[in-house]
């Protein structure tokens, strides 16, 4: 993960000269053993980048899982990622949400902050402003639960850093298309 967006290959080609972009792919797969390993192995084997990956079964009756992958690369690399994913046998569909539909992206984070006095009050005040919930508290710490676009979580974490940030746990992005239609 987090390999450079364009691997420094000696075969650096005519393709891949433009700037890297972030894309979110929504992948519907049969929830069979090893399917996640196939997807992850494809990314590592071909030098693609994974910035975030979430997976869960979404239709229990048909055992369909949705994998949401945030990747980055030039438009050509992202197109290659999509085609390579489509080749995998247990995959139903691959949609580039960034390209094709207006999508909503959300992530959940739990943020542990330790501090006393003014810092503690400030942390709580900022949490309120971000609509974070306090889900655990001691006399010297809070754990905040925060949902939102990844950017909002980044911002919140940055604000907590000087106030006694201890650690962060994030789920990665889940995404869905807007409007009444499925993707």
């Amino acid at each position, binding site marked *: 993960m987090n390999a450079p967006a364009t691997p420094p290959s000696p075969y650096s080609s005519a*393709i891949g000269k433009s700037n890297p972009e972030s894309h979110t792919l929504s992948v519907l797969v049969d929830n069979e053993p*090893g399917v996640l390993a196939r997807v992850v192995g494809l990314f590592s084997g071909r030098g693609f980048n994974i910035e975030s990956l979430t*997976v869960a079964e979404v239709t229990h009756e048909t055992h369909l899982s949705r994998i949401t992958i945030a990747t980055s690369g030039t438009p050509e690399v992202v197109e290659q990622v999509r*085609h390579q994913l489509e080749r995998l046998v247990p995959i139903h569909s691959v949609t580039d949400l960034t390209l094709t539909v207006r999508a909503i992206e959300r992530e959940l984070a739990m943020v542990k902050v330790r501090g006393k006095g003014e810092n503690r009050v400030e942390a709580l005040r900022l949490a309120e402003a971000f609509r974070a919930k306090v889900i655990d508290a001691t006399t010297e710490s809070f754990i905040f639960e925060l949902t939102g676009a990844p950017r909002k979580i980044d911002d919140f974490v940055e604000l907590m850093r000087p106030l006694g940030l201890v650690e962060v746990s994030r789920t990665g992005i889940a995404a869905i298309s807007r409007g009444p239609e499925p993707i």
Partner: protein
Amino acid sequence: MGKVANFPPNRMESNMSKQMTGAEMVVEALKDQGVEVLFGYPGGAVLPIYDAIFHQNKLRHVLVRHEQGAAHAAEGYARSTGKVGVLLVTSGPGATNAVTGLTDALLDSIPLVCITGQVPTHLIGSDAFQECDTIGITRSCTKHNYLVRRIEDLPRILHEAFYVASNGRPGPVVVDIPKDIQFATGAYSFQKNIQHKTYRPQVKGDIGAIKHAVEMMAKARKPVFYTGGGVVNSGPTASSLLRELVRLTGFPITSTLMGLGAYPASDEQWLGMLGMHGSFEANNAMHDCDLMICVGARFDDRITGRLDAFSPHSKKIHIDIDPSSINKNVKVDLGIMGDCAHVLEDMVRLWRTSAAKADAPALAKWWGHIDQWRAKNSFAFRPSSKIIKPQHAVRRLYELTRGRDVYITTEVGQHQMWAAQHFHFDEPNRWMTSGGLGTMGYGLPAAIGAQMAHPDSLVIDIAGEASILMNMQEMSTAAQYRLPVKIFILNNQYMGMVRQWQELLHGGRYSESYTESLPDFVKLAEAYGARGIRCSDPADLDAAIREMIDTPHAVIFDCLVDQKENCFPMIPSGKAHNEMLLADLGDDAGLEIGGVIDEKGKMLV
């Protein structure tokens, strides 16, 4: 995702279904799929399947001497027949030994079904004897793989494996069957033409795109067809449609190593193979063309040379059944997803009905350029009456086997390139070589596979003395099944291609590329019950080759050739198509060319 998917019980179940064990299902499914020959090696975890094989005589099992041999033999069988090749190996080392062959089949898109035994389900993960994570190990070297966890799933998975291996872009599929599943009893039935749940490759090309392609072709002034193994894989129809289209248009055509034979080499529109050791005319036509029509090839680095100087002034059309091949290495102007045969059929039809015509004066001028390149005679070499030149040996082999029903396999290296340059093919499925992976040791087992499929044909493995030793044990297989394979070794005592690169890139320091203590190949042949022939004098060569051809059983032909010969022409690493090195026929070839490859080129393979 650790959850085991709860597949519905086999939907194919009907009145036709029969109760049998998992091992019997394997045999039954292979028969239902029309398999006649399988290659394998027994072991603890596949004993029930071998027992089921013992109880029938429809399936012919070929006992190899190493599982890698089984995989390559299955490849040779598949490549020479167009059918799916099948191998059966045991768990652990059986499976890991097959990995090279599976990877080879993946890179060359050869349909294989590999059945591996596995330790019983309750022992999986316990580091049991001869246990390995076959599914994990083969995930990245197969098109798809399955671990069978329930007897109810076995019939479906077996038939799915054949469907996946042979549809879309073909490739190897592994079915890993734990021993307890082989013993378990369940219902088996076979229903033809089931639709796969998710895998349904598009075979028909977009007609709008094909129309556009035909328009581009009619406008082209300097067109070239660049074809590949996809045409051979698509089947004989694709080859005949390709011939029709090329003749209709009058365009020149070249092909990759894998695609040789799809278009007849004897035709005057044929430019010869392209790529690193391709012909001067093919590579220059690729560089200077204004329209490239790529059919079933994948812009491999051996083909393109330096990418940013690859065919800089051309529009490119790419027909491929695998969408991920389009725009992977080279950006094309028009991608057409579909099977070659279907797309070519539409192209031929549209070309005829639209009465499209090539730009005749421009085309004549283009052929004029090509004729100038042809005049370089880039496959030429300096003949000798004292020592056998390897190119001469291949040429004589070609001339003396002409008109016969011949299948050629090769190992990997200089001899492989010389075979591609100097042996000519007029039909598809006659040429079997390890193109993508470059597997030394491919040729002999592949020849065994091809000979099993074509018992009365002349099957020749054009080999090098280093490569052949990698799977020499398969001579024992050839002996057991009385397969009259001919091994034609161009023996220069060097790993020739390694030596050539050391000469070009590493100042002639031949580090470990010379083989001391080679076996006496004539005696080795005799040890395997075969005929050994040695030839070192050009004057004796024809008679010796005739003797080989006339021998009704296996032959190892030890052809002692010029040790210093280099394989030319050559696009040096990091160079473009129009920067080819040609053999210097006047002087000592190769000595001055070390400086041609720059530091960046040395980084490449």
